[in-house]
């Protein structure tokens, strides 16, 4: 039995029919579907355990706190962080990046520089734009060249003693390019810059070890890795986190408070003001367990095979243009493409009639769309439950498109 065949029964939503056809969900890069194990963990939490965490001197509060902190330990192990204090729960990747931008922002001076790349999702671009605007800093972008790779020579030229932060996607949400984060970290560190990696498209699809990568910050979302919406993770290297003031204030992030000042709490709670999204965090813990059970090496090779099949089948269609690297071995679990003469939204609408869900549009990466010279693209993305038959169905439907519009 293949990995997908084993996993499919775990996803209740796959029983749905869309416009009379079985659901073919090829939009996991936008948000993944949830296995029963995650749904059950959230339901069980609300039905048996819910209370506020950390300061409740009663059984439910203690149990809820234990569940939340257990999720922290699971996430720590899953991404290979050295210490649990380095795992900060946020509401998602976007909030994690904003947290870093605001915390670091306090130390940024006019003339300092931030380096991003042309392939960033808006969530790893706009927070830095806002930071640079507010602090009089300069934003620079590493160009995308060839089939969708970062121009590393240009990157080296952009780095200087003024560079304070380098913010880069681990895996492009459009091109699928797996960026050489280790090399980027090495060069950035030599220039004295901190590195934030947007891992939203990496953690759900391949083994990730943050210690090995060496980045100072690594952000990702629960909902793209089979977990609930409303929870994300910011990994921060302890030595760096300890130097930063909290981004936001509130309850839970303090030790002692007076009217005119306060003493901050220890890591990681210093960066977690307010009641956290407890149920989503519990669900994220279940998602991590699920993915660990399947094995991230197995997930990566399963999705690489799907990627190869998609690239092969789409290449046979003369009307289809593919964007991003053609070699699935250096690519994440997404394939972006366009169909000649048809707008991506019309194609997505047509595919929906067949029950096929794909993403269409700019994928929150407008500068990259401009670089590719397109308004938008279609994007098929995969998960543990995706089968080769579903990819063949997509390719067949794309061949019949013109008959339908």
């Amino acid at each position, binding site marked *: 039995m293949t990995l997908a065949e084993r996993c499919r029964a775990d996803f209740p939503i796959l029983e749905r029919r869309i416009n009379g056809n079985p659901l073919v969900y090829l939009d996991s890069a936008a948000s993944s579907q949830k296995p029963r194990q995650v749904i059950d963990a959230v339901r069980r939490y609300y039905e048996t355990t819910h209370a506020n965490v950390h300061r409740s001197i009663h059984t439910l509060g203690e149990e809820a706190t234990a569940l939340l902190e257990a999720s922290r330990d699971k996430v720590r192990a899953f991404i290979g962080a050295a210490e649990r204090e380095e795992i900060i729960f946020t509401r998602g990747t976007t909030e994690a990046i904003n947290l870093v931008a605001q915390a670091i922002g306090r130390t940024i001076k006019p003339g300092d520089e931030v380096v991003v790349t042309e392939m960033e999702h808006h969530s790893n671009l706009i927070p830095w734009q806002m930071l640079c605007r507010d602090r009089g800093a300069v934003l620079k972008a590493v160009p995308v060249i060839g089939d969708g790779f970062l121009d590393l020579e240009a990157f080296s030229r952009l780095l200087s003693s003024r560079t304070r932060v380098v913010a880069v996607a681990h895996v492009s949400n459009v091109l699928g390019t797996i960026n050489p984060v280790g090399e980027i970290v090495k060069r950035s560190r030599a220039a004295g810059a901190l590195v934030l990696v947007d891992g939203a498209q990496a953690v759900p699809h391949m083994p990730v070890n943050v210690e090995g990568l060496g980045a100072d910050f690594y952000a990702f979302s629960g909902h793209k890795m089979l977990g609930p919406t409303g929870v994300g993770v910011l990994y921060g290297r302890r030595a760096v986190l300890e130097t930063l003031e909290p981004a936001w204030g509130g309850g839970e992030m303090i030790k002692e408070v007076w009217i005119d000042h306060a003493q901050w709490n220890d890591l990681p709670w210093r960066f977690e003001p307010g009641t956290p999204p407890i149920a989503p965090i519990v669900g994220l813990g279940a998602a991590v367990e699920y993915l660990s059970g399947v094995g991230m090496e197995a997930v990566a090779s399963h999705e690489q095979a799907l990627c190869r099949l998609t690239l092969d089948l789409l290449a046979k269609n003369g009307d289809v243009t593919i964007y991003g690297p053609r070699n699935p071995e250096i690519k994440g679990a997404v394939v972006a493409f366009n169909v000649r003469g048809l707008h*991506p*939204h019309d194609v997505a609408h047509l595919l929906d009639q067949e029950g096929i869900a794909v993403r269409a549009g700019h994928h929150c990466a407008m500068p990259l769309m401009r670089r590719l010279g397109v308004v938008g693209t279609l994007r098929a993305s995969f998960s543990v439950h995706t089968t080769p038959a579903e990819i063949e169905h997509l390719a067949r439907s794309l061949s019949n498109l013109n008959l339908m519009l």
Partner: protein
Amino acid sequence: MLYSSVISERFRHPRFFGDLVGADAVFEDVNPLCGDRVRIQLRLADGSIADARFKGDSCAICMASADLLAEMARGRAIRDALAWGPDDLLTRLQANIRPSRMNCVTLPLQVMKGALAAVRAAR
């Protein structure tokens, strides 16, 4: 047929696509949903829209909506055109547009009104 024969026909063979020589009202905007860009050019005379053309890289619905709007606008009083709402387009497009695609219908309308507002402000 995915949308309607009106949309399909206007998408394949738009009648008012292109540049308008001597335009005195030009406006362009973007659909935040998809990044689609529509540009509408109008020639005005005596409180009326004498001629209209559109340009843009957009989906079939948006293209058909812009083409239909240009046709509707030609020869009409500015006051009338400013009063048009989404329903004026929807009935003529003869299509059931799902909520996620309504922006594709209304973007050309917003752009045309933007062009007229810009002219009014300039005067």
